[in-house]
């Protein structure tokens, strides 16, 4: 009798465990390698707001039949810390899909992604080299070469500003932008008077302002990010520099848009029709505004799209009864071709990078305005 009751207990226990396992069979964790501390920590908050909203939407729609969760790791926007975080995500958490940010970090982790067949998706780094990091590295953002090529003709031809000084952070992103400017400026009829590189940790720019003033340019193109770009803008203006500032998507973050010294700055970003009435964009914009009480930016939309892309691909794989692995996600992406995302339909080029139209914006102290729409 005792043996029989023990057998029943064991059976009930086994059934409970099996039921529990079945209930969580489709629970999936993906990774996010964002700077959560250090001078670029504010980007982690910005990117994370898009990621978290996408996770909420995917779970609310029960897209995967189980719960999707995110494991965040702090890259500090540094390649070394990024590699440590990536190893943890891939080897300990065994995630099939990792969100990446910053050119240096993305380049550093791409080899791990390829070796372990883990998909890494970048929604924030814009170094042109990111298009060449192998089939497991995807970019959900147009890269800097497209941004530089969009703003130079506008400044030279329409604003009649021909003389440029480039102040760039000495990392793969800054070097790529310098290379692009050196190639694009002479073709457009402009001239690069000086290219001044600054270390990623530099915080004093009074002396560099003196060099810029001595060069007397029409435009100062700032290729930096995070706190440093804000410090450059403030200290340059404080040091009597009145010329036009120009930059790339990095200027779209709220902190620089709220900075009085940055008013009048021009920057490129991908064109996202925030007013679009398609269901994906409308839901994203409405829910983001409701949750954060402000308009989203391109970065936020990109990381929302990165997670949404995972949701769509994983949903297809689950329907087919295939495991959600990096290898299968890649196959599914190549098979599906187009995706309904925030901002419209997205198509990946062969190198795994999306192509999107670029617009030129101006910081006006009131949330920014588009001064040149995409495709014009």
């Amino acid at each position, binding site marked *: 009798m005792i043996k029989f009751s023990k057998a029943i207990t064991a059976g009930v226990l086994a059934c409970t465990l099996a039921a529990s396992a079945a209930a969580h069979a489709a629970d999936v964790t993906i990774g996010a390698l964002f700077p959560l501390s250090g001078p670029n*920590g504010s980007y982690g908050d910005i990117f994370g707001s898009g990621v978290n909203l996408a996770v909420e939407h995917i779970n609310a729609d029960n897209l995967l039949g189980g719960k999707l969760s995110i494991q965040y790791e702090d890259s500090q926007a540094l390649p070394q810390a990024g590699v440590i975080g990536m190893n943890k995500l891939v080897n300990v958490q065994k995630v099939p899909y990792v969100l990446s940010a910053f050119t240096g970090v993305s380049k550093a982790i791409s080899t791990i992604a390829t070796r372990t067949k883990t998909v890494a998706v970048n929604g924030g780094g814009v170094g042109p080299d990111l298009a060449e990091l192998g089939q497991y590295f995807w970019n959900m953002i147009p890269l800097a070469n497209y941004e530089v090529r969009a703003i130079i003709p506008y400044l030279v031809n329409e604003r009649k500003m021909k003389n440029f000084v480039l102040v760039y952070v000495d990392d793969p992103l800054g070097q790529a932008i310098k290379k692009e400017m050196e190639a694009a400026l002479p073709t457009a009829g402009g001239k690069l008077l000086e290219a001044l*590189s*600054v270390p990623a940790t530099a*915080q004093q720019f009074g*002396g560099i302002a*003196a060099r810029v003033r001595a060069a007397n340019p029409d435009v100062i193109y700032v290729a930096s990010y995070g*706190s440093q770009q*804000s410090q450059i803008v403030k*200290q340059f203006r404080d040091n009597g520099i009145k010329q036009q500032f120009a930059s790339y998507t990095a200027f779209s973050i709220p902190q620089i848009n709220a*900075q009085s010294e940055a008013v009048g700055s021009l920057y490129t970003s991908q064109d996202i029709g925030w007013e679009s009435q398609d269901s994906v964009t409308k839901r994203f914009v409405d829910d983001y505004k409701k949750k954060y009480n402000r308009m989203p930016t391109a970065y936020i939309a990109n990381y929302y799209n990165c997670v949404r892309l995972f949701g769509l691909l994983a949903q297809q794989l689950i329907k087919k009864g295939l495991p959600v692995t990096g290898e299968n996600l890649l196959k599914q992406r190549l098979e599906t071709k187009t995706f309904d995302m925030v901002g419209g339909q997205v198509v990946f080029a062969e190198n795994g990078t999306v192509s999107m139209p670029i617009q030129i914006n101006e910081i006006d102290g009131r949330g920014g305005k588009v001064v040149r729409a995409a495709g014009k």
Partner: protein
Amino acid sequence: MLLLQLLINGVQVGALYALIAVGFSLIFGSTRIFHFAHGSAFTIAAYVFYDLVSIEQIHWLIAVLGASVAAVLFGLVLNRFVYVPIQKHEGSFFTVFVASFGVGIIVQNLCGMLFGRAFVAVNSPLSQSMELLPGLYVAPLSGIAIIIAVVFFVGLQLFLSRTHTGMAMRALSENPELVRAYGLSPRRLSMTVFALGSFLAVPAALLSAAGSGLNPAIGHHVMLISLAATIVGGVGSLRGAACAGVLLGLAENLSLAWFEPQWSEAITFIVLFLFILFRPSGFFGRVTAS
């Protein structure tokens, strides 16, 4: 004109570096505690000042007082509840350093959580430059930084040489046992050293909040400069730390006349390296034989 501009910028930056370095050097020289969290006292003072002036809209004089109290309290609490217990258990120099480093990381993250991780600055017309000569721009803040550095340094020298507490603090670095023999408490003197050293970080913190702006990680940079200035100036020499701070600020800025800005920070460490190689005792440090 570029050289003159860089020279003025160098003196201003150097004055700030000198103020920070003197505080660190005072603490390290007197107590032999490698107070890595000195950068955190700077960060705390700067953020408290920013919060009181820009967020709470309180008069700047009260904000200065608030920032000073916060920095001094931080130094005192850290000494009493972290360094003293470690030393009581005969923790090594390295243990103290790791504890201090850990506190620095905690403060950085706390500031990020409380004030946000984005760049912030105290808006002040004093940070805006005026054209004194054609092509020569100087902000009132530059003059203020230099005056404050001189006043603080002279005041500190007078305090250390003319008051009993100051002389006891100097003696503490030489021979704590002798200090005890004279009926003084080395622990109480250490507390005074930490209070004073942390207070010395305040003016530079406030000037940085208005001049270059802040982010929670700013303390690390401050610490690197303090360390370099302390070694270049000679460990324990306040005069040396002050001169080295100015030298590093000048080197960082004047190098821009000939080199890429990329090299300006490296110049600091080239200067440090040259001193370690050719004059390991620094500007005014004493050569000791082991």
